[in-house]
Protein backbone atom coordinates (compact mmCIF):
# COMPACT_ATOMS: atom_id res chain seq x y z
CA UNK A 1 0.00 0.00 0.00
CA UNK A 2 2.79 2.40 -0.83
CA UNK A 3 0.20 4.67 -2.45
CA UNK A 4 -0.99 5.53 1.02
CA UNK A 5 2.40 5.79 2.71
CA UNK A 6 4.59 7.46 0.14
CA UNK A 7 3.01 10.82 -0.45
CA UNK A 8 4.24 12.36 -3.67
CA UNK A 9 3.55 15.61 -5.47
CA UNK A 10 1.02 13.68 -7.54
CA UNK A 11 -1.12 13.14 -4.47
CA UNK A 12 -1.46 16.88 -4.09
CA UNK A 13 -2.12 17.35 -7.79
CA UNK A 14 -4.87 14.75 -7.89
CA UNK A 15 -6.41 16.22 -4.74
CA UNK A 16 -6.39 19.61 -6.45
CA UNK A 17 -8.07 18.11 -9.52
CA UNK A 18 -10.74 16.64 -7.24
CA UNK A 19 -11.33 20.01 -5.58
CA UNK A 20 -11.50 21.65 -9.00
CA UNK A 21 -14.12 19.14 -10.10
CA UNK A 22 -16.14 19.70 -6.93
CA UNK A 23 -15.97 23.44 -7.64
CA UNK A 24 -17.27 22.94 -11.19
CA UNK A 25 -20.03 20.72 -9.83
CA UNK A 26 -21.04 23.46 -7.41
CA UNK A 27 -21.17 26.04 -10.19
CA UNK A 28 -23.20 23.79 -12.45
CA UNK A 29 -25.64 22.37 -9.94
CA UNK A 30 -26.39 25.20 -7.54
CA UNK A 31 -28.47 28.25 -8.31
CA UNK A 32 -27.73 30.50 -5.36
CA UNK A 33 -25.32 33.21 -6.45
CA UNK A 34 -23.33 33.08 -3.20
CA UNK A 35 -22.80 29.33 -3.32
CA UNK A 36 -21.79 29.63 -6.97
CA UNK A 37 -19.20 32.22 -5.94
CA UNK A 38 -17.91 29.97 -3.17
CA UNK A 39 -17.56 27.14 -5.68
CA UNK A 40 -15.52 29.46 -7.88
CA UNK A 41 -13.28 30.21 -4.88
CA UNK A 42 -12.82 26.46 -4.54
CA UNK A 43 -11.68 26.26 -8.16
CA UNK A 44 -9.14 29.04 -7.58
CA UNK A 45 -7.88 27.25 -4.47
CA UNK A 46 -7.49 24.04 -6.43
CA UNK A 47 -5.40 25.93 -8.96
CA UNK A 48 -3.29 27.31 -6.12
CA UNK A 49 -2.66 23.86 -4.67
CA UNK A 50 -1.58 22.74 -8.14
CA UNK A 51 0.83 25.64 -8.47
CA UNK A 52 2.33 25.07 -5.03
CA UNK A 53 2.64 21.32 -5.55
CA UNK A 54 4.55 21.91 -8.76
CA UNK A 55 6.59 24.57 -7.00
CA UNK A 56 7.46 22.02 -4.31
CA UNK A 57 8.44 19.62 -7.06
CA UNK A 58 10.74 22.16 -8.66
CA UNK A 59 12.23 23.25 -5.34
CA UNK A 60 14.75 20.44 -5.30
CA UNK A 61 16.72 21.56 -8.31
CA UNK A 62 15.30 24.80 -9.63
CA UNK A 63 14.74 27.48 -7.02
CA UNK A 64 13.79 30.17 -9.48
CA UNK A 65 10.98 28.07 -10.91
CA UNK A 66 9.83 27.21 -7.41
CA UNK A 67 9.62 30.83 -6.35
CA UNK A 68 7.75 31.76 -9.51
CA UNK A 69 5.05 29.40 -8.35
CA UNK A 70 4.88 30.95 -4.90
CA UNK A 71 4.61 34.46 -6.29
CA UNK A 72 1.92 33.29 -8.70
CA UNK A 73 -0.08 31.71 -5.88
CA UNK A 74 0.12 34.89 -3.83
CA UNK A 75 -1.14 36.92 -6.79
CA UNK A 76 -4.04 34.53 -7.23
CA UNK A 77 -5.03 34.90 -3.57
CA UNK A 78 -5.00 38.70 -3.83
CA UNK A 79 -7.03 38.72 -7.02
CA UNK A 80 -9.53 36.21 -5.66
CA UNK A 81 -10.19 38.63 -2.81
CA UNK A 82 -10.78 41.48 -5.26
CA UNK A 83 -13.07 39.32 -7.36
CA UNK A 84 -15.10 38.29 -4.32
CA UNK A 85 -15.54 41.93 -3.30
CA UNK A 86 -16.84 42.96 -6.72
CA UNK A 87 -19.03 39.87 -7.01
CA UNK A 88 -20.65 40.44 -3.64
CA UNK A 89 -21.25 44.08 -4.52
CA UNK A 90 -23.03 42.98 -7.69
CA UNK A 91 -25.11 40.46 -5.71
CA UNK A 92 -26.11 43.24 -3.32
CA UNK A 93 -27.07 45.45 -6.28
CA UNK A 94 -29.24 42.69 -7.72
CA UNK A 95 -30.80 42.14 -4.33
CA UNK A 96 -31.54 45.86 -3.97
CA UNK A 97 -33.46 46.00 -7.21
CA UNK A 98 -35.44 42.78 -6.77
CA UNK A 99 -35.19 41.40 -3.24
CA UNK A 100 -33.81 37.96 -3.99
CA UNK A 101 -30.51 36.48 -5.14
CA UNK A 102 -31.77 33.43 -6.97
CA UNK A 103 -29.98 33.56 -10.28
CA UNK A 104 -32.70 31.70 -12.16
CA UNK A 105 -35.40 34.19 -11.44
CA UNK A 106 -33.52 36.92 -13.29
CA UNK A 107 -35.25 36.68 -16.62
CA UNK A 108 -36.00 40.23 -17.54
CA UNK A 109 -33.77 40.43 -20.58
CA UNK A 110 -35.64 39.13 -23.57
CA UNK A 111 -34.99 39.22 -27.24
Amino acid at each position, binding site marked *: MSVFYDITVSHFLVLA*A*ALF*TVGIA*GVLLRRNALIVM*MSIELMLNAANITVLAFSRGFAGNNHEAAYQGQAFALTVIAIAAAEAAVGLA*IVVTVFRTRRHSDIDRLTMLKN
Partner: protein
Amino acid sequence: MSNLPISKCLSWFGVSALAISVVFGFDLSIAAAAADHAAESTVNTFISDEKGGGGKGAAFVFWIFALSSLGGAIFVITRNNMVTAVMGMVGTFFAIAGLYLMLYASFLAVMQVLVYAGAIMVLFVFVIMILNRPEDEPWVMHGILGKGVAALGLLYLFKRLAGILWEVKDVQPLVLDKAALNVDVVLNHSDPALAAGAVEAITRTYEFGSVEGVGYTLFSKYLFPFEAVSIVLLVAVVGAIAIARPTEEESAEDAAEAEAAKEAS
Protein backbone atom coordinates in the same frame (compact mmCIF):
# COMPACT_ATOMS: atom_id res chain seq x y z
CA MET B 1 -30.38 30.55 -27.27
CA SER B 2 -31.53 33.95 -26.27
CA ASN B 3 -32.53 34.76 -22.74
CA LEU B 4 -31.05 31.77 -21.01
CA PRO B 5 -31.34 31.85 -17.23
CA ILE B 6 -27.94 32.22 -15.64
CA SER B 7 -27.74 28.71 -14.27
CA LYS B 8 -28.48 27.42 -17.75
CA CYS B 9 -25.69 29.68 -19.01
CA LEU B 10 -23.32 28.18 -16.49
CA SER B 11 -24.47 24.64 -17.27
CA TRP B 12 -24.14 25.25 -20.98
CA PHE B 13 -20.65 26.59 -20.37
CA GLY B 14 -19.68 23.55 -18.33
CA VAL B 15 -21.21 21.05 -20.71
CA SER B 16 -19.41 22.66 -23.64
CA ALA B 17 -16.20 22.47 -21.68
CA LEU B 18 -16.77 18.79 -21.11
CA ALA B 19 -17.60 18.27 -24.78
CA ILE B 20 -14.33 19.89 -25.76
CA SER B 21 -12.53 17.67 -23.29
CA VAL B 22 -13.97 14.68 -25.14
CA VAL B 23 -12.65 16.07 -28.41
CA PHE B 24 -9.34 16.64 -26.69
CA GLY B 25 -9.46 13.10 -25.41
CA PHE B 26 -8.79 11.97 -28.94
CA ASP B 27 -5.90 14.35 -29.19
CA LEU B 28 -4.53 13.45 -25.80
CA SER B 29 -3.85 9.90 -26.82
CA ILE B 30 -1.70 11.11 -29.70
CA ALA B 31 0.07 13.65 -27.58
CA ALA B 32 0.65 11.27 -24.73
CA ALA B 33 2.27 8.79 -27.07
CA ALA B 34 4.63 11.44 -28.33
CA ALA B 35 5.28 12.95 -24.93
CA ASP B 36 8.76 12.94 -23.64
CA HIS B 37 9.50 13.00 -20.01
CA ALA B 38 11.18 16.32 -19.54
CA ALA B 39 8.38 17.73 -17.44
CA GLU B 40 8.16 14.60 -15.39
CA SER B 41 11.84 14.39 -14.67
CA THR B 42 11.94 17.79 -13.05
CA VAL B 43 9.14 16.92 -10.67
CA ASN B 44 10.35 14.08 -8.59
CA THR B 45 9.57 14.53 -4.98
CA PHE B 46 8.53 12.08 -2.38
CA ILE B 47 7.07 14.33 0.26
CA SER B 48 6.99 11.62 2.86
CA ASP B 49 10.24 9.94 2.04
CA GLU B 50 12.02 8.52 5.06
CA LYS B 51 15.15 10.49 4.36
CA GLY B 52 13.17 13.68 3.85
CA GLY B 53 11.99 13.47 7.42
CA GLY B 54 8.37 12.68 6.60
CA GLY B 55 7.50 9.03 6.62
CA LYS B 56 4.23 7.67 7.83
CA GLY B 57 3.58 10.66 10.01
CA ALA B 58 3.57 12.93 6.96
CA ALA B 59 1.31 10.52 5.15
CA PHE B 60 -1.09 10.56 8.06
CA VAL B 61 -1.16 14.35 8.14
CA PHE B 62 -1.64 14.52 4.39
CA TRP B 63 -4.63 12.24 4.45
CA ILE B 64 -6.22 14.16 7.29
CA PHE B 65 -5.89 17.45 5.41
CA ALA B 66 -6.87 15.94 2.08
CA LEU B 67 -10.01 14.32 3.41
CA SER B 68 -11.05 17.35 5.40
CA SER B 69 -10.55 19.74 2.47
CA LEU B 70 -12.39 17.49 0.03
CA GLY B 71 -15.11 16.71 2.56
CA GLY B 72 -15.45 20.40 3.36
CA ALA B 73 -15.75 21.24 -0.32
CA ILE B 74 -18.50 18.68 -0.85
CA PHE B 75 -20.17 19.92 2.35
CA VAL B 76 -20.16 23.47 0.95
CA ILE B 77 -21.87 22.66 -2.30
CA THR B 78 -24.54 20.48 -0.73
CA ARG B 79 -25.74 22.83 2.03
CA ASN B 80 -29.04 24.65 1.79
CA ASN B 81 -28.26 26.97 4.66
CA MET B 82 -25.72 29.50 3.49
CA VAL B 83 -24.15 30.21 6.87
CA THR B 84 -23.42 26.50 7.28
CA ALA B 85 -21.88 26.50 3.82
CA VAL B 86 -19.61 29.40 4.75
CA MET B 87 -18.49 27.61 7.89
CA GLY B 88 -17.70 24.54 5.81
CA MET B 89 -15.72 26.76 3.49
CA VAL B 90 -13.68 28.15 6.40
CA GLY B 91 -12.84 24.61 7.46
CA THR B 92 -11.80 23.77 3.91
CA PHE B 93 -9.53 26.80 3.79
CA PHE B 94 -7.83 25.79 7.03
CA ALA B 95 -7.24 22.31 5.66
CA ILE B 96 -5.85 23.79 2.45
CA ALA B 97 -3.54 25.99 4.52
CA GLY B 98 -2.30 22.80 6.17
CA LEU B 99 -1.57 21.36 2.74
CA TYR B 100 0.40 24.50 1.87
CA LEU B 101 2.50 23.96 4.98
CA MET B 102 3.28 20.44 3.83
CA LEU B 103 4.40 21.93 0.50
CA TYR B 104 6.90 24.24 2.24
CA ALA B 105 4.78 27.31 1.54
CA SER B 106 4.56 28.60 5.08
CA PHE B 107 4.04 32.23 4.13
CA LEU B 108 1.23 31.31 1.75
CA ALA B 109 -0.38 29.15 4.39
CA VAL B 110 -0.58 32.17 6.66
CA MET B 111 -1.94 34.28 3.83
CA GLN B 112 -4.51 31.63 3.05
CA VAL B 113 -5.88 31.76 6.57
CA LEU B 114 -5.70 35.55 6.85
CA VAL B 115 -7.11 36.47 3.45
CA TYR B 116 -9.52 33.66 2.71
CA ALA B 117 -10.77 32.53 6.07
CA GLY B 118 -10.29 35.91 7.71
CA ALA B 119 -11.40 38.37 5.07
CA ILE B 120 -13.26 36.85 2.16
CA MET B 121 -15.43 34.56 4.24
CA VAL B 122 -16.29 37.36 6.66
CA LEU B 123 -17.40 39.37 3.64
CA PHE B 124 -19.60 36.48 2.58
CA VAL B 125 -21.15 36.29 6.03
CA PHE B 126 -21.89 40.02 5.94
CA VAL B 127 -23.62 39.73 2.58
CA ILE B 128 -25.61 36.72 3.79
CA MET B 129 -26.76 38.78 6.74
CA ILE B 130 -27.75 41.64 4.42
CA LEU B 131 -29.71 39.35 2.14
CA ASN B 132 -31.14 37.26 4.97
CA ARG B 133 -33.25 35.02 2.78
CA PRO B 134 -33.85 31.32 3.10
CA GLU B 135 -33.12 29.42 -0.04
CA ASP B 136 -36.00 27.77 -1.86
CA GLU B 137 -35.13 25.31 -4.60
CA PRO B 138 -31.41 24.86 -4.35
CA TRP B 139 -30.59 22.44 -7.17
CA VAL B 140 -30.54 23.41 -10.78
CA MET B 141 -31.24 20.28 -12.72
CA HIS B 142 -34.40 18.78 -11.41
CA GLY B 143 -34.47 15.60 -13.46
CA ILE B 144 -32.37 12.67 -12.40
CA LEU B 145 -31.19 12.53 -16.02
CA GLY B 146 -29.62 15.98 -15.98
CA LYS B 147 -27.83 15.32 -12.73
CA GLY B 148 -26.66 11.96 -13.98
CA VAL B 149 -25.24 13.43 -17.18
CA ALA B 150 -23.52 16.24 -15.29
CA ALA B 151 -22.05 13.83 -12.75
CA LEU B 152 -20.80 11.48 -15.46
CA GLY B 153 -19.27 14.37 -17.39
CA LEU B 154 -17.52 15.69 -14.30
CA LEU B 155 -16.26 12.24 -13.37
CA TYR B 156 -14.89 11.88 -16.87
CA LEU B 157 -13.13 15.25 -16.62
CA PHE B 158 -11.71 14.28 -13.25
CA LYS B 159 -10.54 10.91 -14.52
CA ARG B 160 -8.69 12.52 -17.43
CA LEU B 161 -7.10 15.19 -15.26
CA ALA B 162 -6.18 12.76 -12.50
CA GLY B 163 -4.76 10.34 -15.05
CA ILE B 164 -2.47 13.02 -16.39
CA LEU B 165 -1.50 14.39 -13.01
CA TRP B 166 -0.85 10.98 -11.48
CA GLU B 167 1.85 10.39 -14.09
CA VAL B 168 3.78 13.44 -12.94
CA LYS B 169 5.69 11.69 -10.15
CA ASP B 170 9.00 10.17 -10.89
CA VAL B 171 10.59 7.00 -9.68
CA GLN B 172 13.58 8.61 -8.06
CA PRO B 173 12.91 9.92 -4.60
CA LEU B 174 14.67 13.14 -3.88
CA VAL B 175 16.28 13.81 -0.56
CA LEU B 176 14.79 17.00 0.73
CA ASP B 177 16.34 17.94 3.99
CA LYS B 178 16.83 21.35 5.47
CA ALA B 179 20.11 21.89 3.69
CA ALA B 180 18.56 21.36 0.28
CA LEU B 181 15.91 23.91 1.05
CA ASN B 182 18.34 26.66 1.85
CA VAL B 183 18.59 28.90 -1.12
CA ASP B 184 21.55 30.97 -2.12
CA VAL B 185 20.60 34.09 -3.93
CA VAL B 186 23.11 36.43 -5.42
CA LEU B 187 21.95 39.96 -5.84
CA ASN B 188 23.85 41.69 -8.56
CA HIS B 189 23.16 44.82 -10.47
CA SER B 190 23.84 44.34 -14.12
CA ASP B 191 23.24 48.00 -14.68
CA PRO B 192 26.73 49.44 -15.04
CA ALA B 193 25.79 52.73 -13.45
CA LEU B 194 24.80 51.02 -10.27
CA ALA B 195 27.58 48.51 -10.39
CA ALA B 196 30.11 51.27 -10.73
CA GLY B 197 28.87 52.66 -7.45
CA ALA B 198 30.73 49.90 -5.66
CA VAL B 199 27.65 47.83 -5.08
CA GLU B 200 29.04 44.48 -4.16
CA ALA B 201 27.25 41.26 -4.77
CA ILE B 202 25.34 40.29 -1.70
CA THR B 203 24.97 36.64 -0.88
CA ARG B 204 22.13 35.68 1.36
CA THR B 205 20.65 32.48 2.63
CA TYR B 206 17.12 31.81 3.62
CA GLU B 207 14.74 28.97 4.04
CA PHE B 208 12.57 28.04 1.09
CA GLY B 209 9.01 29.36 1.29
CA SER B 210 9.67 31.66 4.22
CA VAL B 211 8.47 35.23 4.40
CA GLU B 212 11.97 36.35 3.61
CA GLY B 213 12.24 34.17 0.54
CA VAL B 214 8.85 35.08 -0.91
CA GLY B 215 9.31 38.73 0.01
CA TYR B 216 12.67 38.82 -1.67
CA THR B 217 11.17 37.36 -4.83
CA LEU B 218 8.21 39.71 -4.76
CA PHE B 219 10.30 42.82 -4.43
CA SER B 220 12.86 41.92 -7.04
CA LYS B 221 11.76 39.77 -9.91
CA TYR B 222 8.05 40.11 -9.25
CA LEU B 223 8.03 43.82 -8.56
CA PHE B 224 5.81 44.60 -11.51
CA PRO B 225 3.02 42.08 -10.77
CA PHE B 226 3.20 43.01 -7.11
CA GLU B 227 2.54 46.65 -7.94
CA ALA B 228 0.00 45.81 -10.63
CA VAL B 229 -2.10 43.81 -8.17
CA SER B 230 -2.65 47.06 -6.32
CA ILE B 231 -4.48 48.39 -9.38
CA VAL B 232 -6.79 45.37 -9.28
CA LEU B 233 -7.48 45.93 -5.61
CA LEU B 234 -8.17 49.62 -6.23
CA VAL B 235 -10.58 48.79 -9.04
CA ALA B 236 -12.33 46.31 -6.75
CA VAL B 237 -12.65 48.74 -3.85
CA VAL B 238 -13.80 51.72 -5.91
CA GLY B 239 -16.06 49.58 -8.07
CA ALA B 240 -17.70 47.77 -5.17
CA ILE B 241 -18.47 51.04 -3.43
CA ALA B 242 -19.68 52.66 -6.63
CA ILE B 243 -22.34 50.04 -7.27
CA ALA B 244 -23.24 48.76 -3.81
CA ARG B 245 -23.88 52.05 -2.00
CA PRO B 246 -27.53 53.13 -1.88
CA THR B 247 -28.75 55.39 -4.64
CA GLU B 248 -29.83 58.88 -3.71
CA GLU B 249 -33.54 57.99 -3.70
CA GLU B 250 -32.87 54.95 -1.54
CA SER B 251 -30.98 56.99 1.06
CA ALA B 252 -33.83 59.51 0.98
CA GLU B 253 -36.33 56.68 1.55
CA ASP B 254 -34.29 55.32 4.43
CA ALA B 255 -34.11 58.75 6.01
CA ALA B 256 -37.87 59.18 5.66
CA GLU B 257 -38.45 55.79 7.25
CA ALA B 258 -36.15 56.63 10.16
CA GLU B 259 -38.01 59.93 10.60
CA ALA B 260 -41.36 58.15 10.63
CA ALA B 261 -40.12 55.61 13.17
CA LYS B 262 -38.89 58.42 15.41
CA GLU B 263 -42.20 60.17 15.30
CA ALA B 264 -44.10 56.95 16.01
CA SER B 265 -42.06 56.32 19.13
